[in-house]
């Protein structure tokens, strides 16, 4: 009984200790950034913002992008945070339609290329971008004496049968991005034909990027698929997170014309914030060089600010797609469900 009593006291103490930290306060010396679970930032960068503005920066992670956006929409009348990061161009129209952001034309937007600015009302400002594209296992292709894929069409050539693994666009965000790449590349009338052929070429479909990469991709697992849908920066991550220093990445990205879809991530100030001033400062900070130069090695995507200097491993191993496929956020919002359903019918059933 002594043990049980001790556990009860310990647990009660823990629970009580947690409660005050959890209750959202109207404390003006604190600001909350809501983000998806892939968001990351260096400690020193956070400290710089906090010291500069004498404010505490707190984070709220709310699942993947879709889960986070849903939660933000459901709580828009009584928001859980001041600033929201991580809405991407596939969700942009939907997020804007919910009317939950206030406009802020930050002066730092001058450093951002125009093609990343998709919201002319300045409610969602671009922070970073990453290209979803094919990755391949270099060693595998060298050993087989087969040329690595250079285009989407290569995937349906006989020599590449049974080599590719993709993610389900209905449950995975790189999966959806790749589906959009095919829609943009082959057109809304032609993409299904490509997928039909890809299905006949024995494409493997997994529910998530994790399963595709860690379960099937031959360069990262014991799987037998040497081609995977991932990011153009994944080879850089392979080098950066290698067990021991390596000169060359085991994988490479295909970035040629019209094979990649660019995911752009945005930040916005939530309507209903009681700290709009500080929220604007946070948005400014996220577009400045300190934060922007921290992005590559934290989230393995590219900074939106063109003046940001890339880390060496990015310069050497990460690529930017040449002329990525473009599908407008309005079209994505309008046809998202239709394209996914048609894809599901064609590839899975």
């Amino acid at each position, binding site marked *: 009984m002594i043990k049980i009593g001790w556990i009860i006291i310990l647990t009660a103490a823990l629970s009580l200790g947690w409660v005050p930290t959890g*209750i959202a306060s109207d404390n003006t010396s604190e600001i909350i950034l809501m983000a998806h679970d892939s968001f990351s930032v260096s400690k020193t960068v956070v400290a710089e913002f906090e010291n500069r503005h004498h404010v505490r920066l707190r984070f709220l*992670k709310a699942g993947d992008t879709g889960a986070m956006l849903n939660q933000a929409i459901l709580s828009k009348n009584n928001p859980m945070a001041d600033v929201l990061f991580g809405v991407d161009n596939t969700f942009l129209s939907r997020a804007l339609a919910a009317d939950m952001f206030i406009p802020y034309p930050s002066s730092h937007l001058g450093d951002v290329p125009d093609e990343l600015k998709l919201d002319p009302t300045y409610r969602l400002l671009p922070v970073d971008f990453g290209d979803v594209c094919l990755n391949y296992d270099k060693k595998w292709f060298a050993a087989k004496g087969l040329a690595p894929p250079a285009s989407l069409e290569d995937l349906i050539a006989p020599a590449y049968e049974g080599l590719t693994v993709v993610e389900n666009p209905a449950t995975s965000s790189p999966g959806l991005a790749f589906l959009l790449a095919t829609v943009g590349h082959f057109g809304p009338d032609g993409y299904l034909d490509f997928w039909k052929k890809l299905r006949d070429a024995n494409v493997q479909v997994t529910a998530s990027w994790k399963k595709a990469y860690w379960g099937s991709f031959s360069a990262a697992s014991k799987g037998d698929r040497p081609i995977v849908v991932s990011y153009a920066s994944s080879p850089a991550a392979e080098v950066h997170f290698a067990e021991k220093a390596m000169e060359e990445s085991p994988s490479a990205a295909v970035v040629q014309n019209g094979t990649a879809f660019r995911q752009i991530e945005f930040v916005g100030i939530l309507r209903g914030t009681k700290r709009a001033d500080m929220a604007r400062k946070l948005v400014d900070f996220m577009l400045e060089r300190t934060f922007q130069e921290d992005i590559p090695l934290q989230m393995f995507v590219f900074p939106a600010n063109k003046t940001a200097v890339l880390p060496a491993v990015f310069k050497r191993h990460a690529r930017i797609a040449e002329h990525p496929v473009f599908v407008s956020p309005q079209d994505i919002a309008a046809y998202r469900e239709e394209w996914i359903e048609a894809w599901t019918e064609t590839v899975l059933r």
Partner: protein
Amino acid sequence: MKHISSKSYALLAALPLVFLAIFYFYPLIKILTVSLTLDETLGFGSLKRLITRGIYLRTLWFTTWQAVVSTILTLLLALPGTYVFARYQFWGKALLRSFTTVPFVLPTVVVAAAFHSLLGPGGLVNAGLMKWFHLTSPPVAIDQTIALILIAHVFYNYTVVLRIVGGYWSRLDPGLTESAKMLGASPGKAFFKVTLPLLSPAILAASLLVFIFCFSSFGVILILGGPRFATIEVEIYRQAIHLLNLPMAAVLSLVQILFTFALMWVYTRLQRSRSMALKPASRAVTQKKADGGIDRLILAANVSFMILFLGLPMFSLMVQSVTTETGVSLGFYKNLFENATESVFFVPPADAVFYSLGFALAALLIALTLGVPAAVFLAGPANRARSLLDPLFMLPLSTSAVTLGFGFILALDKPPLNLRTSPILVPLAHTLVAFPFVVRSLLPALRSIPPKLKDAAAMMGAGPLKVWQTVDLPILGRALVVGAVFAFTISLGEFGATLFVARPQTPTMPLAIYRFLGQPGAANYGQAMAMSSILMLVSAAGFMLMEKFRVTQGEEF
């Protein structure tokens, strides 16, 4: 003879009911109404689509049949093992029992990795078969098939049958079966006519839990089964998160809830009619050493099955966690302690262990505090309130984590219940899943308590509380530990709801594993495996510790 007045019975039900009203029904009703009113047809448009489009009916059909088959398979494979645990004493029993429960805490992605390293195209089994039989291609192609879904469901749920039926079986006097044999019944007949009917309350309880778990299966279907398979739970997630179609998600949630409620209503009627009072036997009577040849064979066969089927995948994870390019080393474990990326979200391993255990203990205590009175209430004489509340108490187990997670955001947003960003929400969410487990673990034992024993105690002047303490509690000791272990386990492994309510300042072990697996690189994978191994060892140690409580209580009868 009056044991507990109906007024005190009502009081017993009040606590769990208030909890469910605030943390289950209120958020659920809020999210369902908000979602359905987003739609101008109030969800009827979605309902019509659901009925007219074959795909949704097929999903409901698939959800049901795979759950039925998974449950039957789990029973068939786990009951022999349960017999071994109930009837034999052998070396390493407590350790083995602890390890059979570990799968329950493992995230699906990790289990997928484990199965992959064993059964995948380049896995151990295929490599071995190819070598021995000189094959050119891997003979076992099981990934993303229904077979793997079923195997995974048995892998996860084996322990449910083992613990819930095992606890009950070990109190069953073997004399009853022996008498049947003495009267001329063959061993088979004695089992089917005597043992099985006596065990049926526990078997039914375990089957129901396994069924509901498989019915609302999410990760196993999504990750191991792949995109060709979908349960209602998976479809809710797809509709809500990726298609942003909340009305359809709400209609599907309602279908799921109503379906399980109907099923549980039937079940509770069935179970009530089957319960019978039993005089509990002590372990000295029920358990023996495996002496004879057949005894040894049964023991060896079942223990080998557990080690091969449950142990090998876990073992392969541990092997992966120490396999580095430079050979066997603890490099990945060392890496866990270094914040190589300087990230503000770095999780020191000790913190992850601390928060996981803290949440699990909190969930355990809340679930027991609510589950014990609920079970005592349900075990009382049958009436209308009980036949309604019994299935009602099971509902949280079968409600989509996505739906409930959104419900929390909507409902718990104002003082005094401004909890939506509070870490306390994590154990509360875990309790919702753990509470039905506690109730189901306790009920068969509670109903088996012979009223005569209580009458005798009351006759000797003991008040209701004293009767409970001296008669019920010792008999319940074992079932209480079973319930506690499950509450603890569910909290340690729960992920769906945690992802919604977890906050970066209180990371758990499964969240840390997911974070590592989110980015490419061999070091990330290795650290995920290392953290998984820590999760397994910490869980196993926790179960061992809880078994200790049982030893001191269980010997009283």
